[in-house]
């Protein structure tokens, strides 16, 4: 058994290593080293927690066995998961952190002596508050992430589920959580503790069902943030500084990501959380003209002559699993000496950075993958812009039509390129149901069909 002071010093080292792990992500070159710092921090934390409890009875063997079982499952998932399934994997992982926080809180409630929090029925007030906050936030994170997971996996429809009185119900349940915590502190009654957890699970479900598929980047970031706050609350309960530091880091990380995602959609956080779509204040502008289709040979002719090409991928590319074909196209075009780049909108896909990961997996060098701000001014000098499976993020109505539901959202101004090709399944308006005037522009040609099949046809024609 090591002293509390010594373990606090080791936890401090772990905390610093975790900060360095996040710091490493400021550039792809330092990121791998950062991840090793994170792993080292975790190993120190686990070893120190064994040593500080200092109980080496039979329990320890079971702890190691269970650790290995969980580790094996985690490693198996990590190696098997396809990159296109990252959004649901991240949501699934968040749910586990949430549930673990709930279980730690329950364990502490049932056996407060082990955690030095007082006795059964006589738990210290501060600890009880921290415990209930940890349990409530953990439970909301768990059930909310499960719903996000089901939506992303396609088991549950991605459309917002709304009913009248929804916000009122959420408000009542939110107040109920505080009231229950208050009475739990007064009475320390088991029933109140279990009711608190049950209601928190319910709140998690109700919070996420009204949020639609395209808003998922915000939701996942928000749940990421919640899992951090749950860990921090647990840290307060245990008096463990490492958990407090880590929880705060993760909590603020998730909050920043939510903010970035909201800003990229020009929506405020509250309206995303309340669900449905942003309010449209009047009739949308009528779109004039017609969509002109083009075949692979037409695209190939223009591409072969072009000097600069910008590709704008979206969630449709992930759905069609077209990233390999896109990468192959880029390789061929670059071999011809053309300047080919990618333009990534912050909310393209279902997860922050989703497109970057898919392109990296398809072996697209990351230095030609540009962020929106880096490339948006270059479209007027671009010969060809190719839109693959994205829609709202290239919608000029965001700038031209003040009545559009997405008015004011920053978009990629691909219509300023000489030619625009849009690879799209069919003529529909897509997920959000918002008409896209880009498809009707004079310099736009619609390249209908499954993205992967269309690109493979095109590939054969690029010399």
């Amino acid at each position, binding site marked *: 058994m090591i002293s509390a002071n010594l373990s606090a010093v080791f936890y401090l080292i772990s905390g610093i290593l975790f900060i360095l792990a996040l710091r490493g992500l400021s550039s*792809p070159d330092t990121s791998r080293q950062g991840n090793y710092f994170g792993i080292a921090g975790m190993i120190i934390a686990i070893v120190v927690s064994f040593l500080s409890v200092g109980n080496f009875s039979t329990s320890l063997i079971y702890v190691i066995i269970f650790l290995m079982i969980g580790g094996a499952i985690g490693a198996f998932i*990590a190696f098997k998961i396809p990159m296109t399934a990252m959004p649901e994997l991240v949501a699934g992982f968040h749910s586990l952190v949430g549930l*673990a926080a709930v279980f730690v809180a329950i364990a*502490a409630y049932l056996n407060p002596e*082990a955690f030095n929090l007082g006795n059964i029925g006589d738990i210290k007030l501060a600890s009880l508050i921290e415990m209930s906050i940890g349990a409530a936030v953990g439970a909301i994170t768990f059930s909310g992430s499960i719903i996000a997971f089901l939506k992303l996996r396609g088991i549950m429809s991605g459309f917002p589920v709304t009913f009248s009185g929804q916000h009122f119900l959420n408000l009542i349940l939110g107040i109920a959580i505080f009231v229950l915590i208050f009475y739990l502190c007064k009475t320390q009654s088991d029933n109140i503790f279990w009711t608190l957890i049950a209601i928190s699970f319910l709140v998690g479900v109700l919070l996420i069902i009204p949020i639609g598929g395209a808003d998922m980047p915000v939701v996942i970031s928000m749940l990421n943030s919640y899992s951090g706050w749950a860990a921090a609350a*647990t840290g307060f309960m245990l008096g463990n500084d490492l958990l407090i530091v880590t929880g705060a880091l993760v909590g603020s990380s998730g909050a920043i990501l939510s903010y970035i995602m909201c800003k990229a959609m020009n929506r405020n956080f509250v309206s995303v959380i309340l669900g449905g779509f942003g309010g449209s204040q009047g009739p949308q502008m009528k779109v004039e003209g017609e969509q002109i289709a083009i075949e692979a040979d037409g695209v190939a002719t223009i591409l072969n002559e072009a000097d600069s090409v910008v590709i704008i991928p979206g969630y449709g590319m992930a759905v069609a699993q077209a990233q390999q074909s896109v990468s192959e196209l880029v390789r061929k075009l670059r071999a011809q000496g053309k300047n080919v780049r990618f333009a990534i909108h912050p909310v393209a896909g279902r997860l*922050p950075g989703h497109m970057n990961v898919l392109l990296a997996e398809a072996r697209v060098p*990351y230095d030609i993958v540009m*962020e929106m701000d880096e490339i948006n001014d270059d479209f007027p000098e671009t010969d060809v812009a190719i839109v693959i499976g994205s829609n709202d993020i290239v919608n000029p109505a965001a700038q031209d039509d003040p009545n559009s539901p997405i008015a004011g959202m920053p978009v990629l101004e691909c219509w300023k390129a000489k030619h625009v090709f849009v690879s799209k399944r069919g003529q529909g308006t897509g997920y959000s149901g918002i008409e896209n005037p880009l498809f009707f522009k004079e310099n736009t040609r619609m390249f209908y069909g499954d993205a992967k099949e269309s690109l493979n046809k095109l590939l054969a024609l690029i010399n």
Partner: protein
Amino acid sequence: MEIDPFIFRLSIFILSIFIGYYVVWSVTPSLHTPLMSVTNAISSVIIVGAIIAALAGSSENVFSISSTFGFIAIILAAVNIFGGFLVTQRMLQMYKKKKGKK
């Protein structure tokens, strides 16, 4: 008068939020997905609480109700720790500049 330990923890908490704020803003947007998976892995450091709970059982009664919750929490957190770090590693391996080739 002595300062309540809670105030110390609160100070640590708030300062850490600030550190998180500045560190995370410096993360390049192309690595936002690995950022999520790695924050996920490190938040599973909640496993230290689960270990305390699990080790609280006596030798005669390893699986009391309380320690059983601890054991389950260990499995959940371990899935996350291994899964989170390994999938991050797998992603980061892909972010390499092509060498030699243009």
